[in-house]
């Protein structure tokens, strides 16, 4: 009994790390609920360049939704950016769904050596950071006149090897006999895929979509490189442009940007976990 207690003490370690995880989020949330007058007083050393240090109230003296109201009513750009984000994320996901799902299916069902080599190529491309493929993407987008349009984000996203890689794992796990049986019963390729493959691999599709959403809701490099026109920017790139003296609005906007991502995270956590684990299985 006593030994059990001591063993539970080990949980203190992850608990302490949890504080480190939650601290920035608490700062953000409390800041967004603080009245702008109180906030500028707290932040005054940073804003006016005076003496002393910034202080903080984790529980605001006068909690208010004023910042949110101001953001939603007085700042039409916020809506433009928000819809840009929604459009880019939803468009990327949709294109990936249409293009990556059948490709993953083909790789999972393929038994030939050149198919495996091709898959290795997808994996290698997946591991390359954005900066390495930036020039080649840029040249192609320039040649096709897609630069400075939302398509400059959507087209490279559509052909990203990442969702193919994640879904492949799940399709791979479907037992071959089930599919053979369907084929013997006379179902054609398309039918086997639509009525057996897709439903049985749906967890994989969901995982890939959630991981992709996290990525495309968080776009920084791509819009920065390919979108010159600020009115096309997603929220993720616009937020840091809000200046410090509008701290309250910036924090409210940050919370609102975080919200869709958080909801999807909480709703799809088990798919997210499955997706992460799928990325770890070796080929």
């Amino acid at each position, binding site marked *: 009994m006593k030994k059990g207690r001591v063993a*539970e003490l080990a949980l203190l*370690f992850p608990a302490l*790390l*949890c504080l*480190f*995880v939650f601290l*920035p*989020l608490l*700062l*953000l949330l409390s*800041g967004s609920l603080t009245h702008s007058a109180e906030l500028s007083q707290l*932040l005054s*050393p*940073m804003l006016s360049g005076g003496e*002393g*240090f*910034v202080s*903080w109230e984790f529980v605001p003296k006068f909690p208010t939704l004023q910042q949110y109201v101001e953001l939603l009513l007085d700042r039409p750009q916020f809506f433009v950016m928000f819809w840009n984000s929604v459009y880019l994320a939803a468009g990327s996901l949709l294109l990936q769904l249409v293009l*990556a799902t*059948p*490709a993953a*299916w*083909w*790789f999972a*069902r393929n*038994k030939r050596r050149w198919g495996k080599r091709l898959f290795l190529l997808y994996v290698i491309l997946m*591991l390359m*950071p*954005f*900066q*390495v*493929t*930036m*020039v*080649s993407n840029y*040249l*192609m987008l320039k040649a096709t006149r897609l630069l400075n349009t939302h398509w400059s984000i959507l087209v490279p996203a559509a052909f990203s090897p990442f969702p*193919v890689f994640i879904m492949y794992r799940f399709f791979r796990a479907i037992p071959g006999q089930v599919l053979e049986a369907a084929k013997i019963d006379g179902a054609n*390729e398309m039918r086997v895929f639509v009525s057996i493959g897709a439903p049985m691999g749906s967890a994989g599709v969901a995982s890939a979509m959630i991981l992709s959403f*996290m990525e495309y809701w*968080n776009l*920084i*490099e791509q819009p*920065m490189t390919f979108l010159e026109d600020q009115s096309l920017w997603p*929220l*993720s790139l*616009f*937020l*840091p442009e809000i200046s410090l003296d509008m701290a309250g609005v910036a924090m409210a906007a*940050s919370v609102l940007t*975080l919200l869709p*991502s*958080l909801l999807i*995270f909480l709703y799809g*956590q088990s798919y997210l*976990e499955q997706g*992460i*684990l799928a990325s*770890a299985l*070796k080929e």
Partner: protein
Amino acid sequence: MEQRKQALKRRMKGLLFGDAKQTSLMFLLPSLLGMAGFVLIPFFDVVRRSFFSALGGRFVGLENYRSVLTNDAFQLAAANTGRFLGSCIPLLLLLSLLVALTLYFRPRSAQLFKTSFLLPMAVPVASVVFVWKLLFSDQGLLNGLLEALGHPAVSWMNGGSAFWVLVGSYIWKNLGYTMLLWLAGLASIPDSLFEAARVDGADGLRTFLHITLPLLLPTLYTILVLSLVNAFKVFREAYLVAGSYPHDSIYQLQHLFNNWFRDLDMDRLAAASVLVSLAILALILCLRGVLEEGREDE
């Protein structure tokens, strides 16, 4: 002759539309063509360009490579990137392994912790940029805390400590992801082995060194590769908090690429892209060679 033609026709038909042995290539084709057109062929074009000068298109041999490798900014950025990878990855691996070990043997509390540690993955970088500024600016919260403890203020983002701020934010973001991968590795070790070790009287440390650690090695390869990929994404934090020209200690290859791109310095950019992709490929193959040696492929 006619027979061979027929056979070839049958093979092509099988390849494209599927037959008893294979799945129709039609499933793959849209993705493959797009990938080839937008990624692969342009990349070969970049390789070609790296041997030519952008102005006039003259063949210059290895001149662009020489110009990149002798460039001071490139040397600084490459060294910083190396130092960053060499510090943040071992730290992340160690911390996440400790958390995974703690949670693995206490499944009742594990779920809540998993959710907490995964949460930062869902937080867009832009949302916390303001908090980062609040914490780390010269008159920010952290310095206020230090002052209260009687310690002089530190210039977090404009000194060598910027490097550690970046390492910290990498760990903040990736701890949950990596921990989950370790947990999966631990789950693949049969419980009977732990039982047997206990029956034989091995203590916790010996069990860990002789059973857990060796059996986790296969997991290590994938964790290293994925951590490497994610390590390049800290550019987002670094750029949004400190801009195009941050303190020297966090000026990484990503900054350099970004700046050269803005200056449209295509010669160097092409050569640097080829160099960095080769380096990453070599690193991955090396890790694979060292860690996967003797293991059979699927």
